């Protein structure tokens, strides 16, 4: 019934192919999200789905999950044409999905979230909490993830929540498991564990759909790759027929010459951010560092090392216990974002949904939130100027939206991130702190964002980048700080840095 079933024995007798989607079309107001897309899943195979932000990957998956209804096309599961009218239908067909946006009940415990689809009950129909706790612990142990089943999900960092999501998809019998960017906040170690699980699923004859923007992962785990662009299928090929370049070519229709462009010279000498002896009640202990104008300072650490907390403290969002933060020589009053922003420091949060987006509001207002004063005269917003400024960013970042009036909740994850980045760049800053800036962003956009970060530094900004991506860290940073358990354990220049040195410091 539970975890054991999925992992250790074949769940369902499988027929070839496991699922076939043909001619799928889906239209949203103002957007043709999918047009005549086909997808065939074979049992025991890992099928990767790739494409730029907004290409339609999540939409296709949501149709498979019964969340959205297709406008055209057909879905056959095990050879039978099926209508998936609700997530319930899809679950009954054994389709388990790890969604891109974390889909957990934050007030529930980890264990309860895992069994939320179907609670184990005892003879009189009461929930068997004992079984739930035991099975959840067993499941985590089997996968190798390290999450406390009794913790409240809302208290966990994003990365751990992502593991819970993955575990949930494996808790019940499945015939198709879909993962929409499951690794966007996992450490390399956990990614390795996840891949182990995926291989095991495949060996049990389960069809796996895997969405990721990380090319390396695709080459490692996928059997077949389907690439979408602008809602159309560009190609479906065995992974062996692809090279990095050919895949990128399919995805964005052009080649990326250099993922980590570098136009800036050496960092200037003037220290823009100076943090001395920073400690907080919860995690940070005696953190000191400096960042100079024109440099990118990369912070690396394992999950829970304290980077997010550091980011929030230095922009004045979280209270601090001791320590001093100065921005361009001016002291920042802690726990006060107003002085932070006026001194010229801003944070691009890792948690888009709860700390960044105003979901109900249009792109326009989401973009101009931090820089509204620039478009205002005597408190009145000059909407014309505001719109043209935002439009310029939409064009420059190639943000896919039907218009500035579109509610931001209707944009794809990558495009949302671009809008939030625009929010800060529209306001001239001295320092920008970016926390996992490319989480969920496609290669094309990534290279644009890297180029942007590079440009910003070239213009004299200090960029503080919190990242879990080693290539990003090494490709972009001038200097690297490594955190572990709330302390900075090592600082090094890029030239001195090696993966090994960094990882050693992160584990310390």
């Amino acid at each position, binding site marked *: 019934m539970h975890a054991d079933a999925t992992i250790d024995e074949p769940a369902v007798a499988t027929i070839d192919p496991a699922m076939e989607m043909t001619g799928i079309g889906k239209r949203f107001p103002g957007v043709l999200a999918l047009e005549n897309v086909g997808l065939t899943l074979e049992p025991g195979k890992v099928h990767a789905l790739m494409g730029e932000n907004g290409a339609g990957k999540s939409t296709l998956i949501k149709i498979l999950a019964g969340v959205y209804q297709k406008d055209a096309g057909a879905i056959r599961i095990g050879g039978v044409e099926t209508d998936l009218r609700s997530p319930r239908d899809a679950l009954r067909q054994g389709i388990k999905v790890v969604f891109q946006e974390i889909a957990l009940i934050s007030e529930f415990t980890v264990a309860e979230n895992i069994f939320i689809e179907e609670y184990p009950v005892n003879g009189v129909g009461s929930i068997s909490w004992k079984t739930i706790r035991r099975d959840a612990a067993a499941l985590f142990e089997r996968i190798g993830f390290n999450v406390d089943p009794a913790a409240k999900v809302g208290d966990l960092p994003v990365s751990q929540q992502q593991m819970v999501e993955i575990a949930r998809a494996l808790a019940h019998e499945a015939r198709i498991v879909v993962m929409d960017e499951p690794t966007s906040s996992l450490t390399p170690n956990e990614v390795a564990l996840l891949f182990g699980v995926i291989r095991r699923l495949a060996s049990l004859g389960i069809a796996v759909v895997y969405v990721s923007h990380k090319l390396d992962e695709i080459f490692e785990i996928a059997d077949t790759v389907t690439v979408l662009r602008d809602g159309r299928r560009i190609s479906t090929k065995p992974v062996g027929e692809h090279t990095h370049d050919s895949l990128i070519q399919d995805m964005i229709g052009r080649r990326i010459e250099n993922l980590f462009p570098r136009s800036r010279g050496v960092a200037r000498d003037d220290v823009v951010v100076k943090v001395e002896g920073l400690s907080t009640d919860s995690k940070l202990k005696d953190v000191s560092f400096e960042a100079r104008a024109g440099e990118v300072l990369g912070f690396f650490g394992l999950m829970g090392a304290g980077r997010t907390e550091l980011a929030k403290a230095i922009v004045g969002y979280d209270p601090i216990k001791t320590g001093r933060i100065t921005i361009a020589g001016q002291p920042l009053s802690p726990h006060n974002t107003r002085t932070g922003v006026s001194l010229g420091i801003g944070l691009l949060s890792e948690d888009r949904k709860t700390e960044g987006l105003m979901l109900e*509001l249009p792109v326009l207002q989401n973009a101009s939130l931090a820089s509204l004063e620039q478009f205002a005269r005597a408190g009145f917003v000059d909407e014309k100027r505001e719109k043209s400024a935002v439009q310029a960013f939409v064009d420059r970042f190639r943000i896919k939206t039907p218009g500035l009036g579109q509610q931001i909740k209707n944009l794809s994850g990558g495009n949302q991130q671009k809008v939030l980045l625009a929010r800060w760049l529209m306001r001239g800053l001295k320092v920008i702190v970016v926390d996992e800036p490319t989480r969920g962003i496609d290669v094309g956009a990534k290279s644009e964002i890297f180029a942007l970060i590079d440009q910003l530094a070239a213009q004299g900004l200090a960029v503080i980048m919190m990242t879990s991506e080693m290539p990003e860290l090494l490709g972009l940073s001038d200097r690297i700080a490594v955190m572990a358990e709330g302390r900075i354990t090592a600082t090094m220049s890029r030239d001195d840095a090696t993966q090994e040195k960094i990882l050693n410091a992160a584990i310390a």
Partner: protein
Amino acid sequence: MSEITQPAKSGPVAGRLANNSQIVLLALLVVLCIGISLSAAQFYSVENVIAILRQCSLVLIVGAGMTMLLIAGEVDLSVGASLAFSGCVAMDVTNKTGSVFLGALAGILFGGLVGLFNGLVVTRLKVNSLIATIATMMILQGGVFLYTREAVQNKHQQPAFTDISTGYLGPIPLPVIIAAAVFACAYVALRYTTLGRYIYAVGANAKAARLSGRRPEQLKLLVFVVTGLLAGLTGLILASLMNTGQPTAGRGFELTVIAAVILGGTSLLGGRGTLLGTLLGVLILKVIDNGIIILRWDQNLQMIVPGVVIVLATYLDLVRRRADAR
């Protein structure tokens, strides 16, 4: 909201209106007015129109504040009790100082103080605004009787005090002018100023607003104070209209205001709403209230009909929006 959510292109006026969520309300209002007029010509007599507008002005003034408050993600149920208290204060201070101006000022400021109290309790003590303002309502209802056991009479029979509500500027009654001015200011503030944008932002996502250098607490506090001041102003007008400060006035007023605001399409979850909607909501509710008397219908329908209309209007708007989304 919907004006702001419009795509960047500014279409022709008719197109924008048709796309607007107020269209249902406007249609409803027109139907109501025509319907009532057809069966009772007195409905559109000057006297009746003025009577309706005067009543609307009371609700609209507070409604303007309440709309902003709901957009900012909070609510104030103490406005009814606050306006009764403010009216007593206004009358009492007028009596004691002999100055209507000072009395009026005191009444309005008292309302502002109540708003400040609500705002502080909500933003500093983090008490949910619904329960905080229910508590304030109780405190005010008790407090007003500690302040005065009896209705405060216009002791010196100052005509200037009654003029606040019964005076005219040209052909238009003063309260209507006051309400129009309040509405216009609120409309401009919400629609065209940075402050208005921040109010929406705070209601839509307070954390994001804070990260962008805003102080959600301060903004909410401000909106609470504004709502309080407007309740004080309404209390003053009501006291003037009755020529007394009545400690028992305003019972259920908060429900009328909130009903009008949500009828106007403002979301209770914050971040969405318009003042134009509130204006239409107020007009519809007061036209129904008036129409039932003009038509000599059973007055018990004054509860039933608005109840049905609130649900119906929301339903029609829902249908319209779903059709739009297609």
